[in-house]
Each structure stands twice: as C-alpha cells, then as structure tokens.
C-alpha cells in the first residue's frame, strides 16, 4: 500500500484529483490538509470533505492556513464558481473537519511513517512551507513530492508570467523549492491543448453513468466556459488531476529534468514566476525536477479508470 498526503485548496479540479487518489486501489490517503487559494479555507475543506464522502471514505480533512504567508489572499472564485464547485451547491457533507492543526497533523504523519508519505500539493504552498520551517527534519522523511505548481519556461495563467498556485503565495513556494524536498514540478502547461478533455471526451465520461464521472464534470461546470472565455482554451482543463495522475503513475511524465528553479518574490510584474535554469547559467545546484512532457493518452486513461 502506498501512502499519500494531499495538500489542496479544494475547488473543482482539486476535487477530481482527490477522488482519483481515494479511488486508486493501492493508495491510502493518510490525510488531506486544506489551504487558502482557489477558495477560502473553510470552503475548500467543505469541498474536500464532500469529495471524501462521495468516495465512501473517512480520510481526515484538516483546515490549514487561511492566508498566504506574506501576501494578501487572491481567490479563484471567478474560475471555479462561488462555491468553488461549479455553483453546484453540494450539501454539507456528513464527515466533519478533523480536529487539530493541519500543519502539525501533516508533520506527525510524516514522522510516524518516515520515508513512506508521498506528498501531493495542489494549491498554494503555505501549509507545506510552515511545516518545513517548524520541522525541517521532515525534508528527509518525504520520499517524493508532486506539485501542481508554476509554468516551466512558458506562459502563466493569472499573469503572463505566473501560474495561480505560485502567484498566490510566492514566498511559500520559494521556501518549499529551496528546502531540499525532492519535488516534481508539474506546471500548468501540462493541462492545456491536447491534455484538455474535449466535448467527445466529456461525453465519454458522462457515458460511464457513475456518480464519480458525473461529479468530475458537474463540479467543473463553471471552469469549462471560463477557461474558454478567459484563456481561449477549449474543453476541460484539469491541472490538479494531471498532477495526481503522475503521482499515481510517474511514468505518465515522459520527459523530466532536474534544474535550479527559483521563484520571483520581489517584482510585481513577474511575481510568482517559476524561473527554470535550463542551461545551468546560474551555476546553482539543481533543486527541482521539472516535468517537461506527459503522455496525454495515458493521463486520460488513468483518469477514466478512476471515474468508471
């Protein structure tokens, strides 16, 4: 059994990613920590709890940071809808939020299972940065972290330079990237173009006639048109599920390279830009594995498998 911890700002695509991990046979999700990002932390926690309920699990959902480390919050309601879930207004889930501090709960689990907890981050990195600062020993106890973060040598989404998660809390991202944690950075570019679910593929998911397939499409009801109007991207873009697919099957990332990756924290223009030193010109020790290419067919097949 593989052990996962998911850190998430649960809105629509996070929910699909959580569902994928919860429904994968050889994975146990030991906990979910929620962070302010797409939506307020309590809203995100409700969405995560709803997703856990839907999957028939009792995975503890902890409420984490309600605010980025240094910056003012920047929300993603415009993209995910007023509830973060495509305005589906899902009912209050049965399972309450777990008691206790999210950051301390995460540290505890990692220390109890050193070398066993794979970390998947789907939101701003505030919780993880705090954890690494108060418990630096966990760096050597986490074998791998898969992060939906940044945009490697390409366009951003919330600004021309920056992807949402890193833009929202660039200081936290810098802390995590500089920490020595083994990270595979899955940038926003891997859920564009061919990686999107187009109309026929959305219809295919509907044809499964499962609550999971319907949920995956329904909760993205606001994201699909917004993605088209806002960024001109056709179909359903699923950044967090792509990252989760790679965490479940790392072979889906078919081209990767380790580079020095820095995060812009000073400039307003390029705030949160993930600067990848592909040529090694900074002479700094590579700290991050960058995912350069995914196998689109395999990503979609893995997604379908979890929704059937």
């Amino acid at each position: 059994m593989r052990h996962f911890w998911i850190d998430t700002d649960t809105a629509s695509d996070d929910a699909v990613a959580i569902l994928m991990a919860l429904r994968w046979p050889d994975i146990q999700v030991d906990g979910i920590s929620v962070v302010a990002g797409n939506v307020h932390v309590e809203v995100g926690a409700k969405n995560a709890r709803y997703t856990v309920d839907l999957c028939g699990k009792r995975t503890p959902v902890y409420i984490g940071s309600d605010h980025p480390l240094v910056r003012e919050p920047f929300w993603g309601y415009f993209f995910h809808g007023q509830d973060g879930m495509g305005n589906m207004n899902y009912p209050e889930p049965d399972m309450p939020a777990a008691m206790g501090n999210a950051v301390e709960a995460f540290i505890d689990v990692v220390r109890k299972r050193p070398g066993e907890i794979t970390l998947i981050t789907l939101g701003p990195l505030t919780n993880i940065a705090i954890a690494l600062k108060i418990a630096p020993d966990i760096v050597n106890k986490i074998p791998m972290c898969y992060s939906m973060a940044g945009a490697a040598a390409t366009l951003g989404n919330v600004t021309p330079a920056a992807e949402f998660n890193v833009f929202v809390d660039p200081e936290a991202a810098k802390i995590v990237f500089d920490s020595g944690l083994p990270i595979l950075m899955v940038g926003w570019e891997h859920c564009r173009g061919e990686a999107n679910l187009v109309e026929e593929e959305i219809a295919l998911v509907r044809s499964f006639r499962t609550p999971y397939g319907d949920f995956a499409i329904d909760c993205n009801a606001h994201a699909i048109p917004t993605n088209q109007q806002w960024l001109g991207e056709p179909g359903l873009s699923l950044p967090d599920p792509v990252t989760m697919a790679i965490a479940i099957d790392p072979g889906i990332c078919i081209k990767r390279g380790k580079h020095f990756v820095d995060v812009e924290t000073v400039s307003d223009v390029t705030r949160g830009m993930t600067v990848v030193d592909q040529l090694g010109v900074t002479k700094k020790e590579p700290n991050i594995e960058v995912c350069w290419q995914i196998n689109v067919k395999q990503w979609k097949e893995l997604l379908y498998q979890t929704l059937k």
Partner: protein
Amino acid sequence: MAEKIIIDTDPGIDDSIAILTALQSPELQILGLTSIFGNAEIEKTTQNALRLIELAGKSSIPVAHGSATPLVIPLLEIAMQVHGGDGLGNTNPAPSKGKPVEKSAAEFIVDCIQVNPHEVTLLPIGPLTNIALALKLEPGIVGLVKQIIIMGGAISTAGNISPVAEANFYHDPHAAGIVLGAGWPVVIVSLDVTHKTVMTQSYLDEIYGSKNPLTDFLKRILPYYQQFHDQFYGMGGAIHTHDPSAVCYLLDPGLYQTENVPVHIETSGLCMGQSIADRHHQWQNHPDVKVCMDVNAAGVLSLIKNRLTQ
C-alpha cells in the same frame, strides 16, 4: 502574580544581559526561552540559552529550539565581529548539560499562549522568524497573547546593520512584516531608544563589583562587544543597550515615551529591513504598533544595575 513571559532570543552578548536581568526580576515568570538564529547560528544560540539558565541555576526553565534560517530570504552571514564565533565573545564556556524540549519554538509559543490565555508576554530580542511562524501556525494567538515587546527597528534614526536597517528586522524582514502587521499589541523598543542608553566601562565596573557571580560571566563576555562598539562607533569601551531595553520596558514602561503608529518593513533591495513609520496613514491599512521614541536612560541603567547586582 508574576508576569508570564517567553524570551525569544539569539544569545548573543546583549541577549545574555537581557536574559540575566529578566531572571533576576522577581515580578517575571519566565515560561521558556525560544532560540533563534541571528547573533550566531541556531545550534549556538540554543546552546547559549541553555548555558544561561544553567548559569543562573534555573535549569527547569524550558528552552525550545527555533528556526535556523529566515522565513523567505537566505541566511545572511553571521556578524561574528559583534558577538564572536560562539555568540559569547569567543569565551567558549563549557557546554550545558541541558537539552531543548521536543517541540519547535513556534509550537512552544503557541502552546504557552493557549494554555495561559491573555497572560503571556512575548519578548523577542532576535530576528522574528519564530514569532511569525507561531502566528502562521495558529492565527488565533493574536487574540490570546497579552503583548509582544520587540527589540528591533529604527524609526527616526539610522540603522545599525545597514544605513537604514536594524539587525533583527534585517535578518528576517518578512517575519518582521508579519509580526508588525498582525494586529496584536506590539511594542517596539528600537534603536531610537537603545542608542540613547549607553553602558560605560565605569557603569559596567560597578556591576562587576557586586557579589553576584552572574556578573563574572558578563565580565568575561562583554569585552568583545565593547571592542566592536569601539571599532565601529568609537565609543571607547561603552556599549549601546539593545536587548536589555526590551526587558526594561516590560518592567517599567514609564521609562519610555511612546507613539502609536503603523510600521511597515521593507523586504527587499538596498533598504531591506528598514522600518518605516507611516505617521499620516498614507499607505494601505496597517495596524498601529507602539514605538519607543525617547527614554529615561538613567532610569533604565539604574534598573538593570539594580537587578544584576542583587
């Protein structure tokens, strides 16, 4: 009832004076020392905190190990010319037998405040990383703490580590910004008053002349600090009174003239760590903090001498 305090500290020569002054003050109950990098690396400041409580015969006071590095910026070079390679003027005292508690400094601070709601005064006299992390870990402590008395900043005076920045804020400007912006009761004991409070050689000699054995320790570690002050400021054996001033504010706030004003911290560039008072509220909404602008220096010096020579 004694005032419950946590000293967050990077000892540190002037930290040592401050800690010993606090330990010698019956109206204070020290719940713990939390260590932070700054005047020396974290392993050394933790060790020095342990040494100080052992020296004072108060080994039951817990020491919690704090952050090794600033929140966001990389660790800056340690100013060994000020406090020595060991943080204690290169006197290299014997290691302490004590050990830090298991919890991190930030968790220790959160726990103490939650267990003693509205009673705990935080007294940070180093970079503010631990305090910022405690706030981030448990934002609820904002409404539960009694007050935070910080040695740091330079409001209407020049800096020390740079022309504009005081060292504690400079070492972790992001943390300072978080702590000053949190909207809890903050007092800043800044260079505006610590530079006006000068301990001369003859003042120190009077302290050393007392029978209290703690002053022998100060007598060993202080010459290095005096030498730095002489080389940098030409003070001829005198020193500024930085960290002990925060303890004095706590013991007798009447010794200080204060002003309530929002203070912003520059986090990058040439002016990193600068503390800027926005007296006319021209920048965005930011909570007021109490800044010490003037001091009865003779009163402060007499208070410190009184405590150390008891």
